């Protein structure tokens, strides 16, 4: 099939970017969306034009690296899937597809479709862990965790840290990402004792990074490739934060 692409090209964070038109004539419907970009880059390279830079690695929906904003939707038209899991059979012959990077103040563009998501790492560093050293653990079966609780923790833990929730949110809030980690660790007995401080610190770090406030529109959860539930945000607000949404514990 024939596909018309409008792709965001931006040399680096200091220069302005713009949408550039490309046309591909021989797209197979079995191609993945990223394989279509491989084909585009191959032809650009052969012509001597700079290939399009984009993040990707596992290409099977688990590493969270791929991050394209396709026709106004984070990760494109499919729900519950990442960009790399999208296939060209989701489009029609002759379609025009607009491809942009994640847009958020806290995710500056590095080049073309690639952004800097290190803010997410700093949020985890601010408290997204259980404070336990290697070697000091007791026997795993001494902590009994009912299956339902383990399942709920696993639902939250499935977050791949892609940032689609931020890209989908009109306020560029990272609340879904943050609440998923807070929730996972708080409902497990291992993480419970630190739960309050953890939530405070992570939210404070989120604010410090320049993510917006959550107005609970739910756009994040709809676009989340792992369908992380809004319940986690509700739980975090209710149980761990109370009214206090920032803290003196902020670092850096």
């Amino acid at each position: 099939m024939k596909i018309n692409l409008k792709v965001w090209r931006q040399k680096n964070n200091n220069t302005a970017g713009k949408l550039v038109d490309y046309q591909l004539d021989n797209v197979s419907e079995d191609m993945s969306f990223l394989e279509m970009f491989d084909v585009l880059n191959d032809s650009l390279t052969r012509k001597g034009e700079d290939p399009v830079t984009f993040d990707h690695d596992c290409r099977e929906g688990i590493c969270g690296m791929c991050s394209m904003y396709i026709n106004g939707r984070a990760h494109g038209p499919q729900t519950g899937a990442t960009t790399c899991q999208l296939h060209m059979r989701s489009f029609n012959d002759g379609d025009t597809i607009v491809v942009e990077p994640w847009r958020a103040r806290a995710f500056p563009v590095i080049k073309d479709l690639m952004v800097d998501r290190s803010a997410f790492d700093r949020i985890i560093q601010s408290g997204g862990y259980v404070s336990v050293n290697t070697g000091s653990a007791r026997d795993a079966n001494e902590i009994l965790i009912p299956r339902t609780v383990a399942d709920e923790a696993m639902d939250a833990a499935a977050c791949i840290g892609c940032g689609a929730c931020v890209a989908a949110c009109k306020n560029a809030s990272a609340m879904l990402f943050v609440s998923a980690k807070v929730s996972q660790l708080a409902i497990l007995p291992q993480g419970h004792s630190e739960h309050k401080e953890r939530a405070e610190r992570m939210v404070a770090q989120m604010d410090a990074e320049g993510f917006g406030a959550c107005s609970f529109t739910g756009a994040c959860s709809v676009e989340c490739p792992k369908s992380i539930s809004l319940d986690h945000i509700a739980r975090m607000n209710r149980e761990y934060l109370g009214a206090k949404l920032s803290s003196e514990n902020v670092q850096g």
Partner: protein
Amino acid sequence: MKLESKIPAGPLAEKWARHKFSLKLVNPANKRKYEIIVVGTGLAGASAAASLAELGYNVKAFCFQDSPRRAHSIAAQGGINAAKNYQNDGDSVFRLFYDTIKGGDYRAREANVHRLAEVSVNIIDQCVAQGVPFAREYGGTLANRSFGGAQVSRTFYARGQTGQQLLLGAYSALSRQVANGKVKLYPRTEMLDLVVEGGKARGIITRNLITGKIESHSAHAVLLCTGGYGNVFYLSTNAMGSNVTAAWRAHKKGALFGNPCFTQIHPTCIPVSGHYQSKLTLMSESLRNDGRVWAPKSKEDAVRIQKGEIKPTDLAEDARDYFLERRYPAFGNLVPRDVASRNAKYVCDEGRGVSKTGLAVYLDFADAIKRDGRKTIEAKYGNLFEMYEKITGENPYELPMMIYPAVHYTMGGLWVDYNLMTTIPGLYALGEANFSDHGANRLGASALMQGLADGYFVIPYTVGDYLATIGPADKIPVDSPAFKEAEQKVHAQVNQLLSIKGERPVDDLHKELGHIMWEYCGMSRTAEGLKLAKQKIQALKKEFWTNVKVLGDSEEMNQALEQAARVADFIELGELMVDDALNREESCGGHFREEHQTPDGEALRDDENFAYVAAWEYQGENQPELLNKEILEFENVKLTQRSYK
């Protein structure tokens, strides 16, 4: 070179405990005087970096992805083994040891494998303490399953995302140490050379992938935790960025490379759909518990299916060949990975393959659905079926799945002694990057175990012994000549890649290499084919260095440039793999030489002549490498022929 494996004396089960006691310790107050570089943040790297920082060492951790959490360990699905014997089904440390040694077709060290089995139980405790949400029974105890044909249930899992959850656990421990100021992170930073001076590893040269800046980092010890090299085949289940560059460049600086030809090919992957294919997706091995593998009996039917004239469901029962059940009545569809893979290849070589390409066989759930009901099958495999449908556009509840083998794991890697030290003092290799404990074939759910064993429970002891021996003063500054010279070389290579300005994009050359490797050094190998492959690779190397086309600059984000350097190294590694496969005149595990098989077509080992680790020593550009042998001694297991009939 004399290879010293440093295997401790004493009875097998006491070796590790005795060894730990004999290792030197670094005094707690002195630990902060040492710097350790950890390259890679997968299970091996993240667990090592976190544990060493907790002890008080200063750690620098590097990865090429934008975050340590995205290392390819994240993609492991199935599970992790541990000899907990929670199921009371007869498991023990010795049984896990025995299964792993035997599964590896007796080409691994007894002492290492036993240590791995010993510490496996601590890994599960550690991960649970971190908040890893392993699957649980209703009563709250941990759930287990049997995996990869094991006769006991010792595999722990977190849905189909075990690797993700284990890595996020290690990443959280790492993040905590970053916050404590004990680990400095360098994401989007690629190691491009190792600095060796006075016979010791002194540090690394890196390229900042965002700015292109080449930088030096000095340390007392360097740990390579850089994963496997399956992408030498271009198509594999590895992530697109997985590469051999760090290990290869260390090899060229003097670290021996062990058993490079030992590759694992996984039987249940989604087949290639076209020339644009960029990677292959694994479907969990557990599918073979209920799916039946078959191909059409006749070539004619296969061709009609390939052309789309008939559907597989149109073929009557007696027109189908359930070839695994037919050849291996005892194990049927559950034969080990290498056996299942080879048989699928043979069927396709005979022209009986399916799909448009003829390179696929069926994995059929129709009987299982009839027997257990769709609901049960959905509960077991629903997410896998969904993933299959997303990729292929076909519904596996209605049409049989199509599968084909794909490169999945590399057992070979940098040669290390019992302390995980390479042949360069101060340079260690952990996880898939070392030549490892898996011999010639890795059992399912044991790579995650090994990565975490190395990082959490082995290296914190063994690296201390080295550091205590050299002392805190034994480190050189980054402006010393050894660093400057290495930096110069990296600059020169980067500039050379950009200045060739040839005709062929990097991927195009990489695909050609992959094709050669798959054809001649893949599932089954012959002397003749390997010799041909060597010539082809040498020609490809020339072609690469005269005709690669890399656009852009070095001082910017330049993905083609990154990839070009990786492919250059893959080409050299490919040649060594071929040499190794040619040298190993036997079949064992994943290495199948057609000349060496039993009358009924099974792998035929030659224990008399090949019970050794082949450790290759670099001799200079375009020179044949020198073979060193580490003879493997078996004192606790009896070497037997594998049989799955």
